[in-house]
């Protein structure tokens, strides 16, 4: 029992420090990022003001992938070392990642309609992100599908690891397949890299990305602390 709780109590200490830090950074970065994205940054020379969707879409895509990758690491730690905290992280982070992934898809559709003339195209990038969405749903369904929660955690961890194959596919789908439609984000980023445009559009994108990262980290920490509390209650009532 002591070894089992050694890590969660350490985590509690760390979480108490990190919560206000993340909250502060998230508020500042998102506030500045939103102003920058909507007001200060210039419209794109081709896409005009529609490019402002990018400041939501691309950070969401980053977070969806980053959270999935983090879950993959946590899943590995859980399987190899039976790290309780890793399982709690999985349970806390997966739904958050799923929301980021859903938003990435939704804002992508809202961007695709005016730019490509279609809400959806079956391009490699879009399809692989859709697969990631399905994976998120499947893993979340697995976590709650067992009468014994630790079996759910185990199954979810395994599926997360198997699904990691999809991450490089998303990342390189643009380069591996010559799809008819140019994928949205990367070309825009490349366009941002043009010396004339660089700073004005890269800055809000990075600020929004960092802000969203802090914000979602905050949410995940709150959810993890709730999970820890729930486990403690379940354990003490179990002892009674």
């Amino acid at each position, binding site marked *: 029992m002591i070894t089992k709780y050694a890590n969660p109590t350490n985590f509690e200490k760390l979480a108490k420090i990190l919560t206000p830090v993340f909250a502060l950074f998230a508020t500042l970065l998102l506030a500045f990022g939103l102003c920058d994205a*909507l*007001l200060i940054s210039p*419209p794109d020379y081709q896409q*005009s*003001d*529609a490019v*402002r*969707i990018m400041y*939501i*879409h691309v950070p*969401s895509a980053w977070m969806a992938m980053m959270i999935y990758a983090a879950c993959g690491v946590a899943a590995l730690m859980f399987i190899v070392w039976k790290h309780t905290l890793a399982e709690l992280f999985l349970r806390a982070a997966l*739904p*958050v990642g799923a*929301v980021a992934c*859903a*938003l990435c898809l*939704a*804002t992508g559709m*809202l*961007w695709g*309609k*005016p730019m490509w003339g279609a809400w959806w195209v079956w391009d490699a990038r879009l399809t692989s992100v859709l697969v990631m969405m399905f994976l998120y749903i499947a893993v979340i369904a697995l976590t709650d599908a067992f009468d014994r929660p630790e079996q759910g955690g185990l199954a979810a961890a395994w599926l997360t690891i198997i699904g990691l194959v999809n991450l490089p596919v998303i990342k390189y789908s643009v380069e591996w397949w010559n799809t008819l439609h140019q994928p949205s984000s990367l070309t825009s980023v490349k366009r941002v890299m043009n010396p004339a445009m660089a700073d004005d559009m890269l800055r809000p994108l990075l600020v929004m990305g960092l802000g*969203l990262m802090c*914000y*979602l980290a*905050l*949410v995940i920490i*709150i*959810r993890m*602390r*709730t999970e820890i*509390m*729930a486990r403690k*209650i379940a354990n003490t*009532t179990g002892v009674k």
Partner: protein
Amino acid sequence: MTDFSTFAAMSGYGMYVWPAYGLALIAYGAVFIHALIKKDRLKKKQQGEK
């Protein structure tokens, strides 16, 4: 006023840009609020037991 309406129009892309920001606000906000509600409910439950 015209300043605001040109800003809201987003040079014609307003009907795509604003829903994107709105959706993001709602979804990311909901995630945060849901986390807080869950925590609150658990705390109440914990106090109820004591």
